[in-house]
């Protein structure tokens, strides 16, 4: 195990685990608290369209995915707020539209199979320097935003109607969060893939919510639980030679079950 740390790819994977745990702690807590899990699923799958086009045209798939993720997030909100279309229907439309575009363009790109596999299932063991840099930048942006606007984020997320009776920039807060959610999803796809990334954002906060009903503590616990799950999952995947994304998610679920079980058998205090 110790000489494993000597490999650059493993150091990168550990760093990605840490950064992803931080991203998912803040953004995941927000998504879970505001019940944005399904819309996040839509954004995730829509971003595949951007990735496919980027592969085909030969520019950064991360960029393509980010553009599609942000546009789909806003489009879903616009469709459901301003037109007769129900929100879950709008999500369903963008979900499959993105996948359809993605599949067509990856298919048209020579040697598409490896791209497809890593987009769908992720591969934390092949995270590049660039991707780590982007993740670190996103972590800084998220922390800066949450530290500066924590009160407003909490109040706007809890009761947006009431928040808008005050002279505070409700739209600025919620639109910025929408962009951060989209970017968090895109950068976490590397870790768990399109199919599994939602679990990375929802399981640690859900487990944390078993332990606390305070938003800020939920972020803290999510980080610790997320980091533990990511690292243990990484080691398990290496030891058993199984796909890392799936191993990480399984460990997260296992932690959830353990915490839930422990709380169930623990004699209730007071």
């Amino acid at each position, binding site marked *: 195990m110790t000489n494993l740390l000597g490999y650059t790819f493993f150091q990168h994977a550990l760093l990605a685990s840490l950064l992803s745990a931080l991203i998912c702690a803040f953004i995941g807590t927000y998504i879970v608290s*505001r019940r944005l899990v399904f819309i996040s699923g839509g954004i995730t799958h829509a971003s595949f369209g951007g990735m496919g086009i980027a592969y085909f045209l030969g520019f950064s798939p991360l960029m393509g995915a980010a553009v599609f993720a942000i546009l789909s997030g806003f489009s879903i909100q616009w469709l459901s707020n301003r037109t007769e279309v129900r929100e879950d229907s709008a999500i369903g439309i963008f979900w499959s539209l993105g996948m359809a575009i993605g599949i067509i363009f990856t298919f048209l790109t020579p040697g598409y199979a490896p791209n497809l596999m890593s987009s769908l299932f992720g591969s934390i063991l092949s995270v590049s320097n660039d991707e780590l840099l982007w993740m670190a930048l996103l972590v800084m942006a998220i922390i800066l935003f949450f530290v500066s606007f924590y*009160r407003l984020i*909490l109040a706007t997320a*809890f009761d947006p109607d009431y928040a808008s009776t*005050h*002279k*505070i920039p409700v739209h600025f807060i919620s639109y910025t969060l929408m962009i951060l959610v989209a970017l968090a999803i895109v950068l976490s796809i590397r870790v768990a893939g399109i199919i599994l990334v939602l679990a990375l954002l929802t399981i640690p906060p859900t487990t944390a919510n078993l332990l606390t009903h*305070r*938003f800020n503590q939920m972020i803290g616990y999510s980080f610790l639980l997320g980091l533990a799950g990511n690292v243990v999952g990484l080691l398990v995947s290496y030891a058993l030679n199984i796909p890392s994304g799936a191993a990480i998610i399984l460990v997260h679920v296992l932690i959830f079950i353990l915490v839930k079980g422990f709380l169930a058998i623990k004699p209730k205090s007071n």
Partner: protein
Amino acid sequence: MNNILEIKNLTAGYNGKPILRNVNLTVREGDFIGIIGPNGGGKTTLIKTIAGLLPPVSGEIIFHFGDSKGLGYLPQVNTFDKRFPITTEEVILSGLMGKKGIFGKYTADDKKYVEKLMEKLRAGHLKGKSIGSLSGGQMQRVFLARALVARPALLLLDEPSTYADNQFEAELYELLKELNEEGLTILMVSHDLGIIPAYVKSIACVNGELHYHPSPEITGDVLKIYNCPIELVAHGPVPHRVLSRHEVEHNSQSHD
């Protein structure tokens, strides 16, 4: 007394479709106005328009107090998510967000004032609890505290006694009267026609239009003159009908 709020030729409604027409009302510092009217008459629409949640279809709403004072608002129906991870104090403190500006932080004084308010509203024991674990009446106290925490110049209350038990209802109105005597201007929607005349200073009846009645008495005549088709129910076990039947038919309100 100075004017605190002027409503001029206001038409209010949803998506440009009017519900309330031609509303004119001047609220002076120290007023305590009870807003009555049938279900669907437009009371909540009026309060939301004043609170800034609904853009006016036409007309003007002018406030005569600085941004630092602002208004406190207690909604009739709370749209929040009961499972949201937030504590009662955090909810109450969020009433200060407008006053604090964008980057401001809550101070120890703010937190002390929250505690004082919770005691005053008999909600002291709810400290530290998550909002989802409270009963309807307990939540109502927390939201009332949120409306009061910024020490507003004008308080908008949309049926504050909805979830209150008999004892708290009496306490609530006493407290509002006390706050009013200390200088707080209050606009309160209520269906408690039997009780509010003892507390409010004037009445406005809202039923598609607004009719202002400068004294607190609510009698059958008052309701008739102001086209306010609501049943006047004595505060006791035997309800008696004051208005003619055909006017009452429009609303399916029943008292038993």
